[in-house]
């Protein structure tokens, strides 16, 4: 019996590696995507004053620190039993939307999108943002500028763009001044124009060429999890959770009920846990009869929502649904869904800046420590993010439970690897090409992982180790 170990130099909230086990005939018996890193936030947040947590948990992820920051301050709101004043909430949403545009632009152009822009067959050396800058210098410049605009806007609104500090229990700490709004408006419009351009460009020039690939690569049927408002509108900051089963039926539940709907399974070979739908009655990653598996992220959100509350994005959603139905299971379309969300957020920024209430000074209510439990959720770019805190009478943290966006996709990633490996390795035969295909399969399955597992050019450095059943190494394959 042989074992193949693939070790990507990459991160899913840490580093990961892939092990493939062959049976005696040389066919794939089993595969594991293993996360080999653990940082223990759930432990070291205990004993801290709960109001400090929004400033600590940001460091879980530097790509989506705002999501952690907001989920954490929402959990604090709940712990203290307060609701931020309307402007406090709007400032949080403003930052969330700006961060989203930054993040989606990063993804689309720097990571997964590079494949589409440069073509999947382009040489590795140009399949990155620098390649884009050379082939389409205007787009490259725009991308860098829009990223920078995002960072600059966040700086104006909050003072600190990465690992922010201004969303606090009870609201927001920094008011937005009228002069600042005037400075922000042209920037927001520039981002909106770029969002419109991106989706048109992609629909005209990119997606049509790859539709066949889209329909064949890494398609499996799963459920979906996302956040919607009471009337079913897409919302990334607040609402109720919606769990959709593969057949498109869904159930809505409040944040407080999440433990009734989501459970986490532990496998002995990974530091990362495997969340699953509790109501499915169990967890299985078996390809022929999976159990409890659901996905999160852009496609999931686009699938679970009934409509999008901004006009341009809503028009895009209608077109998307007409083409691909609801729920859409085509994994590669995460990218399309991402661009729809980019548009939604860009529109939302402009709306919020036009709102006269945004400059109000009533942004924060004072809070008093008490013994309580509070749950805060937001939609992080990678999926539903859940922060669950318990405090003692002094507001000191007693218990913390976190379910992080990427973690939801742990099981689907594992299944995708298994599926692809089974197709690619037959009778003990494997070669360099297999690596690239595996890499593509993972990426195809959930390109959103790019921010967790990918290098910035969207490729996955993969190391394969082939070992016998005693784990003695026989062979190593590397694609970097």
């Amino acid at each position: 019996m042989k074992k193949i170990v693939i070790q990507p130099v990459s991160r899913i909230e840490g580093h990961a590696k892939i092990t493939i086990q062959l049976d005696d005939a040389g066919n794939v018996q089993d595969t594991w995507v293993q996360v080999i890193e653990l940082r223990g936030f759930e432990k070291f947040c205990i004993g801290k004053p709960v109001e400090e947590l929004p400033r600590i948990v940001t460091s879980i992820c530097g790509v989506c620190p705002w999501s952690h920051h907001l989920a954490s301050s929402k959990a604090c709101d709940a712990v203290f039993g307060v609701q931020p004043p309307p402007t406090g909430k709007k400032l949080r949403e403003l930052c969330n939307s700006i961060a989203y545009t930054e993040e989606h632009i990063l993804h689309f152009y720097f990571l997964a999108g590079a494949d589409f822009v440069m073509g999947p067959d382009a040489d590795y050396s140009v399949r990155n943002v620098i390649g884009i800058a050379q082939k389409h210098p205007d787009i490259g410049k725009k991308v860098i500028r829009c990223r920078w605009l995002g960072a600059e806007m966040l700086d104006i609104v909050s003072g600190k763009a990465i690992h922010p500090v201004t969303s606090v229990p009870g609201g927001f700490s920094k008011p937005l001044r009228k002069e600042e709004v005037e400075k922000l408006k042209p920037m927001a419009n520039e981002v909106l124009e770029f969002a419109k351009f991106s989706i048109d460009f992609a629909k005209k020039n990119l997606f049509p060429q790859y539709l066949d690939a889209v329909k064949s690569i890494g398609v499996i049927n799963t459920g979906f999890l996302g956040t919607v408002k009471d009337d079913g509108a897409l919302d990334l900051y607040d609402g109720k959770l919606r769990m959709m089963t593969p057949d498109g039926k869904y159930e809505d539940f409040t944040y407080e009920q999440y433990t009734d709907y989501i459970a986490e399974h532990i496998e002995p070979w990974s530091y990362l846990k495997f969340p699953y739908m509790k109501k499915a009655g169990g967890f299985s990653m078996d390809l022929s009869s999976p159990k409890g598996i659901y996905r999160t992220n852009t496609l999931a959100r686009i699938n679970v929502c009934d409509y999008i509350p901004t006009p341009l994005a809503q028009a895009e959603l209608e077109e998307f649904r007409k083409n691909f139905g609801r729920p859409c299971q085509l994994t590669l379309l995460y990218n399309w869904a991402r661009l729809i969300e980019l548009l939604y957020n860009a529109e939302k920024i402009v709306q919020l800046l036009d709102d006269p209430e945004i400059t109000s000074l009533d942004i924060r209510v004072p809070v008093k420590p008490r013994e309580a439990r509070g749950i805060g959720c937001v939609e992080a770019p990678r999926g539903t993010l859940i922060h669950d805190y318990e405090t003692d009478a002094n507001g000191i943290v007693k218990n913390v439970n976190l379910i992080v966006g990427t973690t939801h996709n742990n099981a689907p990633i594992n299944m995708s690897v298994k599926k692809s490996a089974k197709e690619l390795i037959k009778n003990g035969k494997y070669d360099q090409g297999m690596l690239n295909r595996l890499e593509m399969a993972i990426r195809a399955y959930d390109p959103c992982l790019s921010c967790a597992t990918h290098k910035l050019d969207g490729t996955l450095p993969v190391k394969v180790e082939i070992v016998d059943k005693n784990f003695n190494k026989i062979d190593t394959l590397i694609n970097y």
Partner: protein
Amino acid sequence: MAVRVAEEWFAICAGCEITILDIGEKLLDLLPKLEFVHMPVIMDHKLFGQTGEKDKIEIPEADVGIITGGIRNEENKEVAKEMRAKCKTLIALGSCACFGGIPALANQFPVQDLYEKVYRGSKTTDPAENPNKEIPPLTDRVYALDEVVKVDVYIPGCPTQPELVADALTSLLEGKPFALPERSVCDDCPTQRQKKADISLRRPLENVTDISKDVKESRCFMELGFLCLGPVTKSGCGGSEKTPRCIKGFMPCRGCFGPIRKGANPLVEMINALSSIGLNPNEIIDRPATIQRYIGAHNRLRPLPKKP
């Protein structure tokens, strides 16, 4: 000739890498002068050749090496040593690499406690044994980079300030040394100080000051009773604009840029500073980890004996 740059990341959040991207247009000026020979975050696949059969990490020779993140497992150590061997100048980028950063908060607990909480002490998790099948065990604690190899340049901050990265790279390109001045956050803080507090310490559970006015017109947050690590923290987060980032957001500093000089002891200095303006340091909750939130490596944070 272009300067050869190698970059590696360890147990981190990628915020520091994003900071490099956020240098913005200046980055486009810098790029042609840099040749990235190894940088998992942006590019390059041909490190091992297409049929690299090496098991060991190999990094090509470079003029400048950049490492983000602290050391959390043995593999990190190996990579750090390899980087040191191959790079003429080694930069520790971000507070994780410089002082352990937020992940080093874990140093308050024995590693076993982390496993216990994560795998058996969480309400959504079906309890199970620690994962142990073919995954590398964690090191006993989080180490800063310079506990393992010699570091030439420190660029602290969580994350650091994009301008500093650009400045550091520019100085290195010109062959000049780069070091941040030994100034404190207070030195660049625009608030008004009177050298004494008229109120005792309180938690930031409300607006720290009158937010209708510009922050320049506010009294020093600490003198208003809110713990602020400005006095013991290195300045630089505000970039050319100077005003420290958190202060701009009407929030007190939490020390993400680390100590003002090498060998300083912020814990001791902070307790002195508080006493000197009449505040009682005994009132700070979780004092060691609050004052040393970003600097827990170097044995600064460790499991403490239980108080009777």
